[in-house]
């Protein structure tokens, strides 16, 4: 019944036997203990569970773990590099882009992809790019400013 999967998560190789119906987010949280990825709606509408799979932002609550086999996954725990915050993480801290913090990991992963695709996004492009992620605390304005901060930082202007 169980299927073998092998994935790379944050640079570490894992091989596990999982039930075919196990959701990727549960694999990350419960099998690997990476609880930084959150579940907010179970229906891919809120984006709290966003991770990067082979560089693409994916909502891990509506993907099976077996579908991820062979891929390279990055979660929020893998964003800082040797203790140095990712520019997007820095932006969220600097610009008060979070309050309760629950949507934050997904927001940071989605924001990283926005900048990966478009290092100099306009404010409107950032707002559009965050359309798949819900935040109930911040009203988004500081989140948008956090991404702008990160864009400047990445381009060397900040």
């Amino acid at each position, binding site marked *: 019944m169980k299927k073998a999967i092998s994935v790379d998560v944050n640079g570490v190789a894992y091989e596990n036997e999982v039930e075919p119906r196990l959701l990727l987010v549960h694999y990350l949280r419960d099998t690997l203990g990476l609880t930084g990825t959150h*579940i907010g709606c179970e229906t891919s509408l809120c984006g709290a569970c966003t991770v990067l799979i082979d560089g693409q932002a994916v909502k891990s609550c509506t993907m099976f773990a077996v579908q991820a086999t062979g891929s390279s996954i990055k979660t929020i725990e893998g964003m800082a590099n040797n203790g140095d915050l990712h520019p997007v993480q820095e932006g969220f801290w*600097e610009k008060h882009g979070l309050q*309760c913090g629950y949507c934050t990991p997904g927001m940071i992963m989605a924001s990283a992809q926005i900048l990966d695709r478009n290092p100099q996004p306009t404010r409107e492009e950032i707002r559009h790019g965050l359309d798949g992620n819900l935040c109930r605390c911040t*009203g988004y304005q500081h989140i948008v400013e956090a991404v702008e901060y990160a864009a400047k930082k990445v381009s060397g202007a900040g």
Partner: protein
Amino acid sequence: MADKYVGRRVKRTEDPRLIKGLAHYVDDVRLPDTLHVAFVRSVYAHARINGIDTTEALKAPGVVAVYTGKDIAEKIGPVPCASALPGLKVPDYRVLAQEKVCFVGHPIAAVVATDPYAARDAIDLVMVDYEDLPVVVDVEAAANGGPVIYEDFGDNIAYKLTAGEGDIEAALSSADRILKQRVVHQRLAPIAMEGRGVLARYFPGEGELTIWSSTQIPHLMRTQVALMIGIGENKLRVITPEVGGGFGSKLNIYAEEALLGWISMQLNKPVKWIETRRENMQATIHGRGQVGYIEIGCKNDGTLTGLRYNVFADLGAYHQLLTPAIPTLTGLMLSGAYKIPAIQINVTGCFTNKMATDAYRGAGRPEATYVVERALDLVAAELGIDAAEVRRRNFPAPNEFPFHTATGLEYDSGDYETALNNAQALIGYSKLREEQKKAREEGRLIGIGISTYVEICALGPSAAMPAGGWESATVRIEPTGKVTVMTGASPHGQGQETSFAQIAADELGVDLNDVTVIHGDTGIVQYGIGTFGSRATAVGGTAMLIAIQKLKEKANRIAAHMLKCEASNLAFEGGRYSLRAARAAAATGTSDPVVPVGEAPGGALPEPQTEGKSSLTIQDVALAAHLAKELPPDTEPGLSATYFFEPKNFTFPFGTHIVAVEIDRDTGDLKFLRYVAVDDCGKVINPMLVDGQLHGGIVQSVGQALFEEVVYDEQGQLITGTLMDYAVPRAAHIPWMELDRTETPSPVNPLGVKGVGEAGTIGATPAIVGAIVDALAPFGVKHLDMPVKPEAIWRILNA
């Protein structure tokens, strides 16, 4: 002493763990051998339960136990309601349904299994024999007969209440005009991004139960759950780990919290339940839910004479903690920012076959502000007076404070006209009106909406609260000089780990990073009330401030003893007690060098060195207080102080929001042109956090004004059961908010703070609706009900 931290934009100390994904919400707390609970919930809005068959579920793989209403009937008390309105009818609200279910989502059975997938599978195997009953959904239908939910009560009216001062009949008959409007405050879902969650672990040897819960009120929950399940309150520990938003939805005692605790005691194992979003939509409290009738009387110059509001409050099927009390807050705030000689509210609280309404960000006050601000707009339109001007004409002047309202309140302080003037200047009001006029001539639909709100915060004096309105703090300086603050408030995103540390660091003259703020653990923190009603800083922060002052009195005495002088000879500055005479010398650089404690090699505590010194740091004093070798006579060792602060009044923040919108003639869609807010929340501890609170609140208002609505069909089925159907604002929907503020300190507390958590949801909604109505004024529109969707606008444009 100049503040080093207070008033500054200090980055949050909470953030590193949150942005790295290393924080712990309830579902991130992992205990070995944890069992998982899933609930069978009613699919009917109103039905008799003729039987429940759990046989197949119990046989399912991984299932350990299944509990139904019969199992808990004699074991777990009802879900509590703290409101004690005279004549209030209180249905028996059990943690699992008894003879019948009264709303969709009503818990019927709890399945316990070894993993969450197994528990979820097994709930489909529980067979419930329902006999459906007539359903009442509409609140006015419930008030006027309709199928009766509780036969014993005879009708669906839970309570009726009339409040207000002044002769309303005379006030209205003295008016030149009386304007009437029916308004709907639709039901909203709070949608904290983290739903509720409970982990309970019973320690059978010690007879102790620990419950981790995503709640805003750990201590009140401990008291209530202990009573519900019959465990000593001192044997129950409630921990709120990271809490992923609340907005009032976690200011409650829920069935699942008591039930999980009880199940853990039955099975002697940890048990966990994590709410799904669907459960959150069905069975976590909703907010608002009022249908009301406004009558406003005014003179021809716009002066208000009286306001009457007859309101039907949609309470839902049961009372949660504060359900019946919410409309009473609406009554209290009906004077808004205006002088209204006579006010009357008549509340009819009604049972309906829906989830309970309760406190959602603003909790009764957004409804009041909406009523008053819509009424002012009606007056302005009727008399042809500008919306800003009609407001200005009815403001109390700054020298009229404390201002007594006809709802029985004393507003503490305010300068409403300055906030309005500043907001008008910021948005360029007269120019904007010119542009609007020009746009209309071109056939474009631009509207400007104004709200000059006042809100009631810092809840509040205990006499006015159902379960204590004070807040507590303990402040301790540890032997190494580190400062520990324990607050009875329970922040869940507001950032008080930072803002309280700012206050403490300034008061004690220590580094911000040497202060740790602990909250949300009844095993560690003294009894507290919690975080809601924009109270944490105004009440809890004040408790901390006074505790620090007590602590410093003691430290001053110890320091004087150590320096062999009178306490009055010492001055405290920059974290150091100095002989007044020595301060001048210190300024010239001749004072003694002092080795800070905590930096001694090898980790050993150093001995305090006082010989020949003229000053001591507060850390020196803390160490001496713990070593207790040279304390003044009759002085307790240690350096800590606890204070329970009872506020004498509420606080009343205020402000002006002005919004400009343009409506697309073809689609009815709306675009924000400008959003300007000038808010006054009293003294500001951290402007960045204040802006964040305002942004979040304003955008929740955008949701209410434009998108959000909990919809039940006529059978009581929840139509908006997922985030696909319930429209929470997204990043592309928001207006870009331009914030400014005035700062009128509150005289109610020594910090001068008023509170800001709910200002956005209170101030913004009427401004947005007002702007849409203003844009559609050429079509004869005087009012539109929320949420104002493009379809409604399109229909007007195409009528």
